[in-house]
């Protein structure tokens, strides 16, 4: 028994992405959810399952519950509701929950959503609103080791030391994402190009990361709808079949500060890759376009290594110069601009873009896409997704 191609994404919806939404999280969540229903051609009342996000609970509170969304959309009752934890690590895991629910008949139409308001709300992800007080943080906080940027910087420094990756390699990721965002009217950085000189001039936040190595923090929401291929026939869109989906933890996980295991870095994604390609019965060579979770630039070449797109230590050399990962290259990445330059919705905007690549409706559309992939957040338990036309 396999989950391969037993479910598909039939609707995607989004709010606009802004620096100041002027709206609450629940307001944006239902806006995106309604847009996903309209995109699918589905009456919202037919939604009978929902999957929302959680974080580790230490740096953020989640404000939007499935009950709130159901109340606004007048959904009479839900048969399935779940939460995938670990922030951005959860994005593809929400789709996995939904796929399992519809494939087993527990639910018929499952809505997965993420609404975030870090730009104008009370919870930011890039810095602590307060110093968290519990035992877990006592080994990091008193030493000022207090931001996701620094946690990823710590294992990036080691990765650069081991592989010979340069600051210019990191800058290349930022540049390629920006090039894709510049032509995307949804993107925060629409029509705002950047040069390598701009990259090097941007302020150093936490060495080796400059401002342009770190993702956006903006307001917005994205929702997707999952159902079975049979039900998808009665809906509007070309279904994006869930051909591979996986979630994974790794040894000695200690959320975002796992610096005690033998090899620091992103082993969670290595485990995701094994399950993902096994379920899809594919190898990385089969992937036509990939939305790599890019909360920080270094994570893109690091993922290429652990997922097997390149050999261990070969990620930086692969992205060097950027031509291989541009839309005309052999592995186009982050075609909407990613979270570095389109929008930071904890990876849900990347899933929406992966769906567009299957439908053939992306703004930077890669020709003849058969296999479209996206990945979840790093440094935490994470997830991954492979979509096809079925």
């Amino acid at each position: 028994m396999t989950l391969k191609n037993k479910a598909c994404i039939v609707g995607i919806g989004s709010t606009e992405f802004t620096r100041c939404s002027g709206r609450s999280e629940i307001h944006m969540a239902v806006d995106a959810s309604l847009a996903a229903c309209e995109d699918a051609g589905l009456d919202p009342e037919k939604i009978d399952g929902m999957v929302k996000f959680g974080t580790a609970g230490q740096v953020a509170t989640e404000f939007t519950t499935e009950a709130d969304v159901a109340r606004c959309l007048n959904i009479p009752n839900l048969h399935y509701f779940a939460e995938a934890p670990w922030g951005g690590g959860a994005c593809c895991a929400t789709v996995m929950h939904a796929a399992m629910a519809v494939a087993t008949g527990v639910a018929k139409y499952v809505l997965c959503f993420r609404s975030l308001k870090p730009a104008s709300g009370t919870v930011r992800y890039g810095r602590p609103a307060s110093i968290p007080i519990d035992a877990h943080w006592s080994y990091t906080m008193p030493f000022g080791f207090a931001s996701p940027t620094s946690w990823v910087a710590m294992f990036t420094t080691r990765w650069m030391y081991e592989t010979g990756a340069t600051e210019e390699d990191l800058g290349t990721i930022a540049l390629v994402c920006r090039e894709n965002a510049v032509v995307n009217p949804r993107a925060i950085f629409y029509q705002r190009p950047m040069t390598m000189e701009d990259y090097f001039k941007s302020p150093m936040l936490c060495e080796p990361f400059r401002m342009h190595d770190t993702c956006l923090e903006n307001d917005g929401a994205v929702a997707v709808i999952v159902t079975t291929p049979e039900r998808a026939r009665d809906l509007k869109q070309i279904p994006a079949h869930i051909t591979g989906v996986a979630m994974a933890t790794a040894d000695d996980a200690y959320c975002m500060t796992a610096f005690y295991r033998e090899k620091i870095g992103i082993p969670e994604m290595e485990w995701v890759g094994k399950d993902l390609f096994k379920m899809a019965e594919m190898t990385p060579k089969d992937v036509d376009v990939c939305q790599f979770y890019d909360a920080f630039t270094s994570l893109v070449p690091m993922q290429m290594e652990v997922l097997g797109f390149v050999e261990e230590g070969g990620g930086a050399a692969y992205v060097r110069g950027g031509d291989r990962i541009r839309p005309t290259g052999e592995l186009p990445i982050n075609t909407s601009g990613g979270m570095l330059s389109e929008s930071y919705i904890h990876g849900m905007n990347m899933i929406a873009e992966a769906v567009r690549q299957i439908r053939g409706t992306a703004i930077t559309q890669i020709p003849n896409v058969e296999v479209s992939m996206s990945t979840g957040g790093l440094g935490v338990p994470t997830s991954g997704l492979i979509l096809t036309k079925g």
Partner: protein
Amino acid sequence: MALELNKYYLKYFYDPVAESFEEGFWNAVKQRRLVFQRCKECGEWLHPPRPMCHKCRTFDLEWVESTGKGKIYSYCVFTREVHPMFRVPFEVVLVEMDDEKVRFISNMLDTDPDELYIGMPVEVEFVDINDEWALPWFRKAKKKK
């Protein structure tokens, strides 16, 4: 460049919180001693502490005094403030201990960011925070005579 223990640091500093199985670590820190957890059965080192040895799954654990010597395994340098408690610039180092199979997050004393490198020998030095608490920081290892 050390983390500045200014009035904001002291204002926001809280007593490190410990679960029951971690008290040995923090009680030793209060006494200006760096200890790590080790399994009495199989000798596995555990840091941060765990209630159970993950190798042999016994609860028979002990606290062993560290020699305090290690090498920088990785590091980062804060140049943009994320909280008033932590005035920039300052370094955070991940130290791999020489004599205990653990790594430890800490800060550096009397070292410029430019001096840091992976593999740099360092040794622990306790820095007083208040009457009760000190934190184990590191400085460049003294050259052997």
